[in-house]
């Protein structure tokens, strides 16, 4: 009855007009950006002087470089320069990675240390002025040749090359093996002072860890930790976290070990695959995986620590949608921007349209500011002011999503002011909405207005969470986990889903990404529920869109949206002695 009356109601006509307005009058449009994909150039600069025979008897230095070589995504070009008394090997950036790998394996440690010649030659290999350029230098000592004059010349050459590198925007990342000692002259250890990065290891056995630091921290390669800790058996089964494997271009499983690895084998379903193995690492490289699991088998000397990381690669082009909206009574104009990475091979395939990404936060830089965007139904959604018409260059930190999306570095978003006639229609539509809302309101009970979201926190995290997955979706038993909020975050909000992912939980718990934590007053934790999960604290239910404070030693019980999986969180103090 109500519906019939409503249709006869004139307000209905106004609503219809509004619908037309939305369809024709909105300023949304789709643009496929045509910017070029960001490229990276990396030159390995390896010291192969005689002293490396002592420092690196097992040749773990080239092994560490190989580990980086085979893990880097496809938009990285790699070259190699090896130097002793002079440059021994020089492989250009367009050389195949296998050739570089063979060259690394064949190096001989001989001669003096002519880092000047080495660096100079390395800089000549860079071609692309727009690419990010990095030299990764591995050496065990200062510059030294057979006589002081030659040594001095090489040092000057090194200094000049460092200057050139700085001018050309080439980053020098130095891995120094051994004790820097007390060398007053400029040398490779000094490279940190010149906008470079310096890693120092006392033992070559640590190089594998440094290789990973270079990959993940210096190059920002996104990875998903599959395992950390002691591996009890010789088979590793990895599940790809995405529901659709066709959105993945490449998947690499990097296995590193503190003891020698051997007998590497793998089982997988993919368009193609290969195993690239060194002394203490192995990479299973899959192109277009076609199933969600892969298995890698290996043999290792006992007593070692084996770790595995999953590096996913997606090739994408970016579609842009912009919708102008007016925010509340202030009539502030904003543009809701949606960047949609789509597959290059299939423009209809939204690469982020997967439960794995849903609700994830990702940093976006626009208008010179960093904004936190959210992934929603395959699009990266965020808002920009739309007071003036302009083009905005947007840069997305895809690595926040845990995968390497090879896409244009920046995306141009066009923000337009709405047209004049649009205002009239909007005005009429506003009236119609008001009338329709009045009619509707008279027939409905008023819904409670959800409370405003809490303002950005001004407090810092002070505690840690003990996590007990009391019921997993597959009924498996998950060992209790501990997550130190204090150590990992300062003030930023984090979702439970992201937290669980950081703990290495491979399956998703429905709704976990919509439960948020942020620091509160008096060392409490602010828990915000934006999901349909059932959250209990001391038998009090935390309903959707509400928050509560969790104090030390308090427990939260969560039943997830699948109404099956359950989890208990215990918030505990981090004692001063436990803080780093």
């Amino acid at each position: 009855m109500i519906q019939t009356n409503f249709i006869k109601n004139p307000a209905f006509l106004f609503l219809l007009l509004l619908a037309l307005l939305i369809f024709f009058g909105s300023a949304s449009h789709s643009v496929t950006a045509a910017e070029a994909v960001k490229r990276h150039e990396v030159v390995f600069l390896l010291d192969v002087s005689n002293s490396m025979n002592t420092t690196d008897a097992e040749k773990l230095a080239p092994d560490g470089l190989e580990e980086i070589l085979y893990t880097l995504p496809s938009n990285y070009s790699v070259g190699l320069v090896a130097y002793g008394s002079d440059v021994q090997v020089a492989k250009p950036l367009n050389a195949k990675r296998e050739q570089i790998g063979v060259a690394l394996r064949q190096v001989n440690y001989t001669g003096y240390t002519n880092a000047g010649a080495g660096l100079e030659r390395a800089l000549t290999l860079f071609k692309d002025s727009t690419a990010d350029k990095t030299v990764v230098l591995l050496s065990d000592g200062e510059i030294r040749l057979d006589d002081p004059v030659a040594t001095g010349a090489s040092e000057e050459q090194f200094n000049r090359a460092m200057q050139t590198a700085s001018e050309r925007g080439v980053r020098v990342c130095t891995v120094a093996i051994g004790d820097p000692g007390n060398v007053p002259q400029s040398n490779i250890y000094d490279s940190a002072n010149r906008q470079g990065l310096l890693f120092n290891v006392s033992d070559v056995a640590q190089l594998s860890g440094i290789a990973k630091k270079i990959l993940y921290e210096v190059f920002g390669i996104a990875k998903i930790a599959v395992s950390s800790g002691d591996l009890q058996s010789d088979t590793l089964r990895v599940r790809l976290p995405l529901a659709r494997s066709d959105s993945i271009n490449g998947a690499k499983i990097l296995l590193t070990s503190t003891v020698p690895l051997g007998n590497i084998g793998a089982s997988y379903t993919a368009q193609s695959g290969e195993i690239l193995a060194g002394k203490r690492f192995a990479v299973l490289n899959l192109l277009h995986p076609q199933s969600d699991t892969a298995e890698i088998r290996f043999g290792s000397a006992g007593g070692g620590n084996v770790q595995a990381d999953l590096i996913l690669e997606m090739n994408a082009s970016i579609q842009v949608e912009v919708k102008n909206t007016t925010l509340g009574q202030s009539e502030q104009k904003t543009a809701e921007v949606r960047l949609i990475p789509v597959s290059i091979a299939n423009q209809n395939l939204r690469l982020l349209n997967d439960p794995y990404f849903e609700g994830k936060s990702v940093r976006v830089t626009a208008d010179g500011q960093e904004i936190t965007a959210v992934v929603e139904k395959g699009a990266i959604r965020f808002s920009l002011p739309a007071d003036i018409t302009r083009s905005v260059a947007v840069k997305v930190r895809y690595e926040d999503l845990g995968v390497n999306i090879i896409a244009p570095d920046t995306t141009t978003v066009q923000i337009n002011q709405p047209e004049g006639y649009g205002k009239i229609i909007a005005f009429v539509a506003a009236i119609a909405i008001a009338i329709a809302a009045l009619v509707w309101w008279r027939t409905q009970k008023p819904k409670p207005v959800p409370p405003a979201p809490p303002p950005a926190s001004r407090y810092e995290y002070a505690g840690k969470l003990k996590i007990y997955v009391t019921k997993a979706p597959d009924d498996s038993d998950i060992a209790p986990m501990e997550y130190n909020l204090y150590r990992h975050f300062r003030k930023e909000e984090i979702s439970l889903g992201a937290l669980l992912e950081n703990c290495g939980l491979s399956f998703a718990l429905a709704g976990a990404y919509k439960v948020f934590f942020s620091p509160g007053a008096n060392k409490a934790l602010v828990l915000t529920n934006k999901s349909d999960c059932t959250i209990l604290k001391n038998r009090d239910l935390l309903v959707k869109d509400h928050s509560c404070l969790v104090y030390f030693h308090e427990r939260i019980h969560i039943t997830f949206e699948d109404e099956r999986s359950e989890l208990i969180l215990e918030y505990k103090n981090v004692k001063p002695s436990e803080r780093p």
Partner: protein
Amino acid sequence: MAIITQTNRTLLLEEINPEKLDLLTMVGDVKGMDSLNDEKIKEINEHLSVKSFDEFLEKFDPVVYSFYNANNQRVMYTLKKPETIPDELLTEIHLNMHNDFLKMLLTLVETKRSQGLLNVDFKFEKLTNLISPAKVMEDIRQIRKEMRYVYSEYALLEEGDPKRLDVGDKLNVMFEEASMNYNNVMAMLPLAIEDIKTRLLLGAGGDGKNNTPLTLGVLSMGEEGELKILEAPKPETKALATLDDQINQGLITAIEDDYQALNEENHNDYVKALVARTFCPLPSTIVSTVDTEKEIANYNSYLEFYKTAKDDFIKTVKPLIEKVLGVRLFFEQYPAKLKGMRPTLLITNVSNEMVAKASNIPRLITFLNTVNAKNDFNNTVWYSIFPSVSLDQNSKMKLTRERFQGNKVVENPNVNSVESLARILDVLKDYRVQCFFSYETGDKTTFNYMATEGIDKFVERCTSLTGKPYSEFAIPCVPNFTIVPKDKSGVVLDKKMFLNDANMAELSGAKEDIMKLWIDGVYIGAAFVAAGLYAATQCPEYLKKTFKRNVDTELPGVRFDIEAGDHPLRVRTSLAKEITGFTNSIKDDINRKNFGFVFSSENAAYDGLNITDIMVYKARNLLYDAELGVYEPIYKTQVTTYIERVLRHGTGDFKQDNIIKFFSNNPQSQKSLWIGKRDKVNSIISEGDDINYVIDEANGICTLDITFNGNVKNLEIEINRLTSAGRTA
């Protein structure tokens, strides 16, 4: 008045009887709950808490179930009640003081202690054969003798005589005890075996050789003085025979009636006669003729069946027996006559794999939160026992999700994984419960093994537990105690019979006809004894009894250091030494590493007397002090926990101003009171000890520096601040 009246309540993490209630079931679902109410705790105590071994047997009633499998003609034993078998086809074998196996083992422990002999010298076989049919029969003979005596008294008294009623009561109890034997065939087997032996070998010599039929005779002298054994005459005096016959006959009738009443549906005459003969032997004049060949066949079959059944029984029951013995030895460390801080054992009665499951751990947490996070300390748990840890330091829980597909390994179901221990330790540490754990029993964890291999293997096994936040609360106890060594655990039941050329029954001399079963070694986890001994030392009465002087009557023995001075010589276990001792090099190694809770079996003397008991050599947890290069003594953790709890109670939950008063120099402050008693054996602050505190107002943290003989241990507590601005919510 003492705030804390007990510091030795111990949680035993073991399953005893799956049919009884367990901690997880009683705690129940803890969704939305941080703690349990008082009624629930009371209920848990009623069902799961015991203060003595007898109470333990009564409450938990450890039992083995047996049923017969017609397919393989064997008796099957199981510790878990089979769900698909009806009750009437299931027999419960209760491991109580009536069980011959348990009785034998307890007798063995007692005898060895009183004799003070080493394992190498002790005659284990003399006691292990207590479970042989012959020895079972000896027990029965004693019962029989007593029954006959009491029955004769009963028979002589007149009807209506009040004394007859009293004797009747006594007789009823005896019949009840006897009926436990003839109530089922299995229990009758050893009796049947002995009965046949008796009847068939009556005329045989000690070697069982039987060549001539027996006819009873009388020694007499012939006409010319020659010695003759003449066939015995029939009895002439009726009176004696009548009287004797009446008593016997009356007893036989009573027993037969009793048997019949208890086995209405399935009794048989053979068994009835057997029961009668067993419990009331008939005079030889009434002995009936037997079919020798049939009886020999019966005998051999009974013996074979009994041996297999006993074998299977022992294999099944051994893990449970070891737990039962462990509990016994836990309580045995505290003298029965003392009435002080008697140790209490709270038993989870559920497997540790279940407790450590992610879905169940919150229940354990809720329970401990209730009993250990309050200012009421009556139910506070201070210690725990976690026995039978797998020797494989990488052993995982059977329920853990396989992150990496691994090889399938057949695991011993009676052994707890290191992973489950680690998970439980992680919970225990938050409630400051010290956990005594020991490794799976066997010949690789004994004194003998440690005497040859040293302590390294144990240190290595504990690496995964060291350097963790819970390491302070993990106490590895080595070595395990041997009750029956593996190489001395053979029990000769009896020999098979055969029909010889003279058509008589004879015991076989062939090796393969000796029915022998192997107990395969019986051991007790060191954790039970370590926890029992340490729990005992918490009691001021115990310390008073041991040290006589300088013991405060109120203070618990939290600061008692069993390693210090002559304490190891005075505070000893109740178990006899097992070996001559460790070599000097092994002892040096132990002293260098200062690892674990280590027992020693050494030659020592105290006060002019030789020590024949096992002593404590080291008492350390797994918290490693890299600076000093040693593991920390366990008493430090106990003291720290005690001080924290007293402090919380005494300062109204760590109110800052009260903390200041607590540690002030005022003679009535708690610190001053403790210092005043520092010369006592059970002082809290001993000679060379001190407590100081520093309050960090900005962070609201008070750090206590507790100095033990110059070494400082820190305790951080969050305080209730003085100013309301800084007051915690």
